[in-house]
């Protein structure tokens, strides 16, 4: 059963700062790569297939990690695990501008969670993560866990977000028919669902990885190394160009 708290958290109207980001859409529009509804579909599918699997898998792992609680196993406490997971996600985002945007979005979502679940300790688990906040999929996974959702839902929400953020930006940037764009998103539904499912599966696999002694000495990177890591060099380059452009409406 999905709780109302979970629906509130995932509501696009909830103030989490996403409205100021375009998921690369503004730079693609500026570069002339996206001009109409058909382009929006191609862009969203491309983003789903590149950024989607990692976002889904990391949100799912984060959800499980939060649900596991602050447990302290030899050589690896929860804060170290969060830092490791955060580092692994950052390693999958080649563009410095996109990494910054991801932390900014994480900060916005964390602020939202803080207001809705004031009893949740959002400091201790993330004390080893660089500022301003963990990457967005990690905060999303934790948020879903706090609202009693499971890893599958966290992964699905992350996958969906890789499409909804650029799609809503396209409506604003290009004056597209919002119903046509909503139709595009619905048409991608099966693929979004599958990305979410696959992400949750990856997470389940990584959770079964044992805490091997000596993991910390090896940098601790083994546990999450197998999570999806697909690259989109064009989007990375555009993101960095965008961050330097003088006139921009979206932060990313």
């Amino acid at each position, binding site marked *: 059963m999905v709780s109302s708290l979970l629906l509130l958290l995932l509501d696009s109207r909830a*103030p*989490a700062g996403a*409205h*100021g980001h375009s998921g690369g859409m503004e730079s693609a529009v500026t570069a002339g790569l996206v001009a109409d509804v058909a382009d929006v579909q191609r862009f969203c599918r491309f983003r789903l297939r590149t950024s989607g699997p990692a976002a889904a898998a990391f949100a799912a792992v984060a959800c499980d990690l939060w649900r596991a609680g602050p447990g302290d196993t030899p050589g690896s406490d929860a804060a170290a695990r969060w830092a490791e997971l955060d580092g692994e996600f950052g390693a999958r985002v080649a563009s410095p501008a996109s990494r910054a945007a991801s932390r*900014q979005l994480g900060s*916005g979502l964390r602020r939202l969670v803080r207001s809705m679940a004031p009893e949740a300790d959002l400091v201790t688990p993330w004390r080893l993560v660089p500022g301003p906040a963990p990457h967005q999929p990690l905060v999303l996974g934790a948020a879903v866990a706090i609202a009693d959702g499971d890893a599958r839902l966290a992964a699905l929400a992350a996958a969906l977000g890789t499409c909804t953020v650029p799609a809503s930006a396209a409506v*604003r*940037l290009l004056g597209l028919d919002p119903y046509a764009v909503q139709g595009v998103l619905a048409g991608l539904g099966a693929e979004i669902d599958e990305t979410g499912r696959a992400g949750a599966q990856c997470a389940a696999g990584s959770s079964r990885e044992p805490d091997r002694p000596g993991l910390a000495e090896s940098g601790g990177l083994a546990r999450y190394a197998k999570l999806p890591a697909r690259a989109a060099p064009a989007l990375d380059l555009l993101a960095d160009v965008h961050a330097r452009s003088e006139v921009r*409406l979206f*932060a990313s």
Partner: protein
Amino acid sequence: MRPDNDTRPAGHQHDHAGRHVHDHVHRAAGEPSGAAAGQVPRIGIGGPVGSGKTALVAALCRALSGELVIGVVTNDIYTTEDADFLRRAGVLPAERIRAVQTGACPHTAIRDDISSNLDAVEQLEADFPGLGLVLVESGGDNLTATFSYGLIHRQIFVIDVAGGDKVPRKGGPGVTRSDLLVINKTDLAPLVGADLAVMDRDAAGVRDGRPVLFTSLTADGGAAPVADWVRATVAKLAGTPTRG
């Protein structure tokens, strides 16, 4: 009785007899986690495109930077020109100006989803511990655009006489609810056939005693009355005990 910070120019004063003059904001219980008492005073500056928001920010920095360390968060499409404009004002180093992108929704960023602006304000506070005032300039919007009090403590709404003397009568939350209404470009009034007395009367009629100031920001010292209001407001806010 007029508050001592009500410095409307002669000829545009009203007694508003019988009205309670507000210099504070009534807020609902359970206010959001944003702007709270005891923080660095935050003042929002909103208003339609071209009414003079950036000019007011520059003029306030010029007037107040000798006494306050000021930081500015701007939500307008922020170009090198804008930065230069503020720097030329001579008093605001670039690192104390932060730009927030609003995703083509300037309204949303100051009212419905203030997270990016809160991040920018908090970052300024962290970077400059001596900060005495943060001005948050909204992107140019329309008469319905107002700030959330989760983001700022007080807000100034700037309109101009060139938009026509009917604007105050049209009302809208910016005109009716702002803590200070600034009616700018009074120098243009004769050129556009705007009647300042009509604007003052109409504004007074919908503002329940909240102050209105007429300015011509292009004139030397044109922002002085607004600077006085800001000075008095900052003093009051800074003297407020911290909540909790």
